[in-house]
């Protein structure tokens, strides 16, 4: 570089040297817009099909430029996490920072290389745009700023959950999952974009975004408070919930590897790390001071019944719960094995509910010990929440043999401490979570007794496609040495000399007929025999409605074997409500939601 001395004075002719510029090519660009660069932040486009309406763009927009508009022509589905909201952008506010592009969980919103928009003074309406696949003027321009791996503002990968190895867990009923550490939980919680799709999807509408936020802030008590607003079975749900919320989670909708937030494990973490006494205090919050003087009977101390009882007690009513078994919890205790839901956790949930003032009478069987009519006489309202405690049978040949048992019955025996007849080899029929539960429970018992696992599970559905059980369950079952035979229908239980020797299955061609009804078709040629000392049927349950008594059964309206109820769980009999698995399906969180619904309706009814 040439140095210029301060005291130098250039020649007076210096500027004239620039006359040479007359011979140079002009630098002027032709009129009209040039092409913008490949990552230019021009006007927005939005892929309406990819967009799920989570409104993250609206929240990150620093200029409050994004309005969510409802598009009725787009279908919404809360359970899948799809809303019919789409962003509309106010170019009177936008600053083209592309933060909306970088945060979009599904990479729907992007920017083009289009950048010229002018309008007359009275046409400012054109500044409020609804981006679609084409840009502001309906022309298609090349894409400019789109999301890249670097620019993605979201953390797509879930914190790994530690769990016991299959060798360590196979001979006991200890809980498999380790749970988060505080650090991991905070990191996992920090991924949440607070879109609320989970809350919409959850049957009980748990305030997941709020408690995740509280966990992120390290305020676990606040988190528990949020949970108890909607769910008194938080310990249970923190472990065994079917987590529809995670299906809906906007982070799970992303392209490529993108995991939803581990909402269930976060709930579990918060519940495990707040002391029992504190939780009891939290649960009591909002309890009515004044007694209403009304009393309600609840039949069945499962999640639905106890939730309804919990709510009603907090409203100031007197509630008595009748349970035929020696402990409360219903299917969560007698249907879910300990390695998924340790008993002490369930005990704690129930203890909290009792501490609020719910009175549970154990070992009282309604129908025999006390009649429904008596319950009605003593109370202002009755809730039926008895669940599905009877297993369905396949009714194939030989299924009436004594070594052909129902999964629910077996599952109930284990926590009760009854002696279970553990076979050397067993076949489970069914592909749902109950089938997995029993298969894995039996595997543990086999390992304890014989030192090896010999369990075969046959299901109608195809693995990886239509299979009913959770992927996790399948994966863990396989790890534990259970062999799963998919797309196989049971043909008959083979009995020789009055002794069960095994099960014959045939290949499934299709499960449903053209109308979508359940009508499996088999390929009878493809026959297999599975040796077994015991066959376990896990194809579904039904309710024991005999406790209603004849008179009441007559009075009630029925719908395909289930009691007919309205949307609030009210039956056709004025004083009777029904909730939980017996009327709606099929998991804890739905039961809890049902409990709330019924409680609300009863309260409304009693205050009328």
């Amino acid at each position, binding site marked *: *570089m*040439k*140095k*210029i001395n*301060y005291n*130098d*004075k*250039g*020649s*007076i002719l*210096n*500027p004239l*040297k*620039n006359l040479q510029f007359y011979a140079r090519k002009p*630098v002027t660009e032709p009129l009209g817009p040039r092409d*913008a*660069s*490949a*990552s*230019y*932040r021009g006007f927005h486009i939005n892929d309406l099909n990819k967009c799920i309406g989570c409104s*993250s763009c609206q*929240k*990150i*927009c*620093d*200029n409050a430029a994004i309005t969510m508009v409802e598009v009725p022509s787009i279908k919404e589905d809360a359970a899948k996490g799809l809303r019919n909201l789409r962003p509309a952008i106010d170019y009177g506010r936008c*600053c*083209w*920072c*592309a*933060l909306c592009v*970088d*945060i979009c969980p599904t990479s729907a919103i992007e920017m083009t290389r289009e950048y010229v928009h002018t309008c007359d003074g009275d046409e400012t309406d054109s500044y409020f745009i609804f981006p679609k696949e084409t840009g502001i003027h309906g022309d298609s321009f090349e894409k*400019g*700023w789109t999301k*890249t791996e*670097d*620019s993605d*503002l*979201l*953390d797509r990968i879930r914190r790994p959950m530690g769990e016991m190895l299959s060798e360590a867990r196979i001979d006991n009923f200890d809980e498999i999952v380790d749970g988060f550490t505080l650090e991991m939980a905070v*990191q996992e*919680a*920090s*991924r*949440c*974009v*607070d879109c609320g799709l989970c809350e919409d999807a959850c049957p009980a509408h748990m305030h997941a975004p709020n408690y995740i*936020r509280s966990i*992120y*802030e390290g305020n676990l008590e606040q988190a528990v408070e949020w949970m108890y607003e909607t769910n008194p079975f938080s310990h249970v749900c923190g472990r065994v919930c079917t987590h529809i919320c995670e299906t809906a989670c906007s982070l799970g909708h992303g392209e490529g590897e993108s995991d939803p937030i581990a909402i269930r494990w976060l709930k579990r973490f918060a519940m495990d790390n707040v002391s029992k006494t504190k939780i009891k205090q939290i649960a009591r919050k909002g309890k009515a001071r004044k007694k209403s003087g009304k009393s309600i009977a609840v039949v069945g101390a499962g999640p639905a019944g106890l939730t309804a009882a919990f709510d009603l007690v907090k409203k100031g009513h007197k509630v008595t719960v009748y349970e035929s078994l020696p402990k409360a919890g219903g299917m969560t205790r007698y249907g879910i094995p300990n390695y998924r839901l340790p008993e002490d956790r369930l005990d704690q949930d129930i203890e909290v509910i009792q501490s609020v003032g719910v009175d549970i009478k154990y070992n009282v069987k309604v129908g025999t010990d006390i009649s429904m009519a008596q319950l009605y006489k003593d109370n202002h309202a009755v809730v039926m929440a008895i669940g599905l405690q009877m297993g369905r049978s396949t009714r194939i040949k030989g299924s009436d043999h004594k070594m052909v048992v129902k999964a629910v019955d077996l599952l109930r025996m284990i926590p009760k401490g009854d002696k279970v007849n553990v076979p050397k080899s067993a076949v489970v029929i069914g592909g749902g979570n109950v089938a997995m539960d029993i298969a894995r429970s039996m595997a543990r018992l086999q390992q304890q007794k014989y030192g090896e696992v010999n369990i075969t599970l046959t299901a109608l559905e195809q693995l990886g496609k239509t299979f009913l059980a959770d992927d996790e369950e399948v994966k863990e079952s396989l790890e534990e040495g259970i062999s799963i035979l998919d797309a196989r229908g049971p043909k008959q239980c083979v009995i020789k000399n009055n002794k069960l020797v095994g099960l014959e299955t045939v290949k499934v061609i299709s499960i449903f007929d053209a109308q979508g009804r359940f009508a499996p078709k088999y390929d009878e040629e493809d026959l297999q025999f599975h040796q077994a000392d015991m066959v376990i049927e896990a194809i579904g349950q039904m309710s024991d409605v005999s406790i209603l008594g004849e008179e009441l059964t007559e009075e009630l309206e029925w719908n395909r074997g289930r009691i007919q109820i309205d949307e609030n769980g009210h039956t056709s009999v004025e004083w009777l409500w029904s909730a939980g698995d017996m009327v709606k399906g099929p998991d804890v969180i739905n039961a809890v939601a049902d409990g709330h619904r019924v409680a609300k309706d009863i309260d409304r009814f009693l205050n009328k």
Partner: protein
Amino acid sequence: MRPENYQAVKLGDSNEYEIFIGPNHPGIEGNYAFRLMLDGDIVVSGKADAGYLHRGFEKLMEGRLWIQNLAIVPRICVPDPAPMEVAYSMAVEEIMGIEAPIRAQWIRTMQLELSRVAAHLFTFGGHAATTGMYTPMFWGVADRDLVLDLFEDFTGGRVYSIYNIPGGVRRELPPEFLQKLSNLLDYLESRQNDYDNLLFTNQVFVERAKGCGALTQSQALELSVTGPNLRACGLAYDVRRDDPYLVYDELEFDIPRQKHGDAYSRILVRRDELFQSIRILRQIIERLPSIKGKIRTPIPNPLSWNVRKGEAYARVESSKGELAYYVVSDGGDKPYRVHVRGPSSMHAVQTLEFLAKGARLEDVAQIMFSLDACPPEVDR
């Protein structure tokens, strides 16, 4: 119009009179005003009048999430926006206790130097225009535009890059970018003679600029003058060297200085600095390809991002001088307080008032441009 509104002004006892320069005045950089008391065409006293560009930035930032502020910080100084982003990001990083990956630091350095080149080219043009020379202005602006083209290439925005983010930068460089950059540097170097002939050694300009708005070193220090303006007074002080940030301690560059402290010294310092920046950029072109790795340290989800309690004072050498961000966090998702110390807040008010005193009216504009005073940094 109401003729009765136009009455004779009452004169004071002396023959001094007052005029306003700005806010709408071609000799004012940006939207800024000056009240001058004149005796003949000699300025007796001057008083700056700011606030025309006041947006309440510091208040706005307190109401936005940490990440949302990224879009707003570059607006504080329009001709040289990159240092704003970097300083803010650096302050937040310091509070959080994270560091940008090494590659990101190199890219940031490149962005800062490119921005310095653009800003200096712009100032040359402005300064020349205040002496009535419009060709250098046309050149300066047109050459700056070529730098902006590069900005557009790798940041996606021409003027406001919004490219930094606490923890690193937002995007990887596009392919063949460094080649383009190298070509641009070649071009700028080839322009050196043209600029020298037309501006830096042009007698018309030199005569006007020499001795105009001269500051001694002690006056400069007293007035907290920084950046090229301080270096024109003989003190080779540069935040890049004395309080190193990013990767400046790995780069070789000189700190140009001049002794006389006048407008001519200042523009010469800027000229030399421009070529030092080119030198730095050449080193970056050489080193950057060998520096592999990530460009961003992950931060939590920006929507629920709480920065832990603390405060940080991040300083950066912008094209105008020492730029600092003082950021305070109370552990929330928004800054508790952001204070922007724009270099021009020192230059455009007290220094300008000081230098205007005794200057001739026609030189006031030149003094302002030679200080490269950027009003939005005063107003915020």
